[in-house]
């Protein structure tokens, strides 16, 4: 275990004085396999203090394994790592801290308690807690990362929790921070603010930062250098000043990716296939009114936490206290149960794949039958079920969407995120719904899987489906939508009637800043 020479607080000396020629985290020739699966091949990286290094890579490229090696959770099969000229031991170094995408804070405990967790011994009474609060406040003031140490973590906003995580890492003496998708759940305004704080930490305090992200603009905004991992190799490493997002996307995927291309409907039609009128959910949604025509894709843009999940609940038939009307093809639909909505022709791809979409411990065939086992051909008279019909349906859908599975009985939990999403899509689309509601459909998916989902949506739009896309991903929205409405604090605060859409204006609206309507 490397023990920092200084105490647990970062010194305030400017970066230049701290770094020597060999300072930094130096990885040489790192390799790692799991059985036959080679995850990392000969990766050499140098993270300097006071620098922001962006690390790009698709899911499965090896990023998380690399991070686990850096934090000492995993030993490399080959290669060396030194931290400030000291070899990295098993168990990691106190100087490297990782801030995970899913926060590692205990929600029911206060900030101070979270700081003390795992870092204290013996009695932790009122006095100790108060002293810790004072330390935290002092550090917060110094670094500009505001936080209330006596607050319970579950009362803090996502951005505030983020700050707590960073503060905790710094408090423990970290000189190098690994930030895993830190902007994942932030509003565009908060994103800018966080990126600025990150740069500040690097430049002013000499912290070396690895920024793991798949948002290419963030790389350009905040990083000094960028490295791209693909297939376990570092395929590119360039100063940010010299790259374009197109290059980076190509490096990540290995081929040209049509990410930026707009895929609007050839002839956007009007009409009202899906209509929401004054839909409200106490405390979550306020008089949401919107309409989607056949052959049209309308995106509901917004940062998660502004009512999206509530909107999704309403259209899933799971919002018990919703009021207002939902109409399909001008006929009002009973939204009190998922069955009514499905019967009315609404198909939904839930944002939470494994909570609402798939049962991991059951086979693909069972999962594909979950929404339709009460009707023929899966159902037979007298409460019976046709297993052969279930199997046929599974085989058909697996083939139609090229799901990578050895048999229909393969457990859904063994599928990758992208293929799991194909199963969900396949199930929904098999009913040829007139209205498709998709919520965060590409969350957690890599570029290839994302492309597939987008292509599928576009294809169904061309067939006349009315699609409502609930998303926080600006790329996705700008690429697919015919019209965009912005959801903020449960209300539609802006509408953009035709593309191409002004990302700045979109971002502002998502963050609650009203502007003259585009």
């Amino acid at each position, binding site marked *: 275990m490397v023990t920092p020479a200084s105490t647990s607080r970062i010194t305030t000396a400017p970066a230049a004085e701290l770094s020597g020629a060999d300072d930094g985290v130096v990885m040489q020739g790192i390799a790692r396999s799991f059985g036959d699966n080679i995850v990392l091949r000969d990766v050499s990286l140098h993270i300097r203090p006071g620098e922001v290094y962006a690390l790009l890579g698709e899911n499965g490229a090896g990023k998380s394994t690399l991070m686990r090696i850096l934090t000492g959770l995993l030993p490399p099969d080959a290669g060396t790592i030194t931290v400030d000229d000291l070899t990295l031991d098993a168990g990691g170094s106190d100087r490297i801290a990782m801030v995970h995408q899913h926060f590692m804070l205990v929600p029911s405990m206060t900030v101070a308690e979270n700081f003390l967790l795992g870092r204290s011994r013996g009695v932790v009474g009122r006095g100790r807690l108060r002293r810790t609060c004072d330390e935290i406040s002092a550090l917060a003031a110094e670094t500009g990362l505001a936080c209330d140490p006596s607050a319970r973590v579950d009362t803090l906003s996502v951005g505030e929790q983020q700050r707590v995580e960073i503060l905790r890492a710094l408090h423990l003496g970290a000189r190098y921070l690994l930030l895993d998708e830190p902007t994942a759940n932030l509003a565009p305004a908060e994103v800018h603010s966080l990126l600025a704080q990150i740069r500040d930490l690097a430049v002013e305090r000499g912290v070396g930062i690895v920024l793991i992200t798949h948002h290419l603009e963030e790389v350009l905004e905040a990083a000094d250098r960028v490295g791209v991992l693909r297939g376990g190799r570092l395929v590119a490493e360039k100063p940010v000043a010299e790259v374009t997002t197109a290059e980076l996307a190509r490096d990540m995927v290995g081929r040209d990716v049509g990410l930026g291309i707009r895929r609007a409907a050839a002839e956007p039609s009007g009409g009202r296939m899906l209509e929401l009128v004054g839909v409200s959910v106490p405390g979550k949604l306020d008089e949401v009114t919107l309409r989607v025509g056949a052959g049209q894709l309308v995106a509901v843009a917004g940062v998660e936490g502004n009512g999206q999940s509530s909107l999704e609940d309403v259209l*899933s038939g799971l919002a018990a206290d919703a009021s207002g009307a939902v109409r399909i093809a001008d006929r009002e639909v009973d939204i009190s149960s998922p069955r009514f909505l499905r019967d009315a022709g609404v198909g939904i791809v839930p944002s939470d794949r494994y909570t609402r*979409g798939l049962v991991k411990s*059951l086979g693909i065939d069972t999962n594909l039958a979950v929404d339709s*086992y009460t009707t023929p051909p899966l159902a037979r008279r007298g409460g019976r*079920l046709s297993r052969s019909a279930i199997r046929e349906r599974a085989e058909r859908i697996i083939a139609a969407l090229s799901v990578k599975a050895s048999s229909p009985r393969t457990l859904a939990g063994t599928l990758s995120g992208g293929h799991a999403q194909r199963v969900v899509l396949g199930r929904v689309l098999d009913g040829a719904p007139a209205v498709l509601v998709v919520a965060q459909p590409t969350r957690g998916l890599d570029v290839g899987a994302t492309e597939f989902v987008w292509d599928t949506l576009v294809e169904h739009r061309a067939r006349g489906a009315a699609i409502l896309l609930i998303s926080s991903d600006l790329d996705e929205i700008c690429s697919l939508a015919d019209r965009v409405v912005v959801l903020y604090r449960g209300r539609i605060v802006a509408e953009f009637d035709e593309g191409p859409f002004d990302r700045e204006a979109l971002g502002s609206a998502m963050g609650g800043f009203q502007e003259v309507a585009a």
Partner: protein
Amino acid sequence: MSTGMLSPPVAAPPPDPATRSRLRSLLTTVGIPFLAVAVGLAVGAVLIVLAGGNPGEAYATMLNAALGGDTQLGRLLTGMTPLVLIGLGYAIAYRTGFITIGAQGHYDVGAITAAAVVLSLPLGTSWVAIPVVAVTAAVAGACVGGIAGVLKARLGVNEIISSLMLNYLVFYALAWTVRKPLANPNGFTPESERIPDWAALATIPGTRIHIGVFVAVAAVPLVWWLMRSTRFGFSSQIVGESPSVAAANGISVARTIVTSALISGALGGIAGAIMLLGSEFRLSLAVSSGIGFTAIVVALLGRRNPFGIVLAAALVSGLTLGSQAVQRTQEIPASIGTVVQAVMILTVLLANRIVERAR
């Protein structure tokens, strides 16, 4: 010259992955219970030695008591009957994620109902009595099971604690029943009068096996069919594995759980009624004998599969009969049988897990 020389042996091609995994699953389905029995008997042997007995003799006696002759087999089958029914009930409930230890209460209430019906209603013939008892006992058991089911499904109350408390409540109801309303004025211990002859279950000619056995026999394929080929069986699985996915697809989690609790209670009630009319013939406190936990043993050893449950019921019933025999003849405590059962489940749990991890 190569004539007369054998060509070098060619290694057999490795089995393809599909066959390999099928072999593996066969190994676990059959191998693990076997392992469990082996470990259980080994531990039992140790305890027998501690008790001053001879494992060989003891196990021989046990085997004899279970399979030694026609009467023994008869007793084995009658002993298996309630275990099969209750084990099936447990499996059905567990499928929806509802873990009930209420089998004792369902069983007791079924026995009470059966006794009450035949002792107070002048039904006169078995042809009338059996259906009436079956229905009332099933309903009574379902009510008790349903209480725990509703408490869990609608109020989120932990079903283990609630079903256990209900067991005690039913037990005291049983205690009162044999002391007061149905009491036998001539008996020494609290017990009811003997059921009238017409109410007793007929036996298979030439044996002492009552026809209740056929109920268990019929229940097995019925339950297998229920789990595999009905909508209820399908939705139970979804509810048990992921209530959120079930709800998102319009499946009523509460209704599924309660239904499974009702079915499981009904099966337990029927089991109790069968035992009363088939072998006990008299309601007493001895009826209530810890069968609830035994059901869990049976269900787990049988891997919650209806046919496996039959085999496991045979094993456990044999073990129970054997332990009683060994206690009678060789003064070795019958509780060894209980310990062996527990060791068997623990082995199954451990072995399952090890196999899972090796995957």
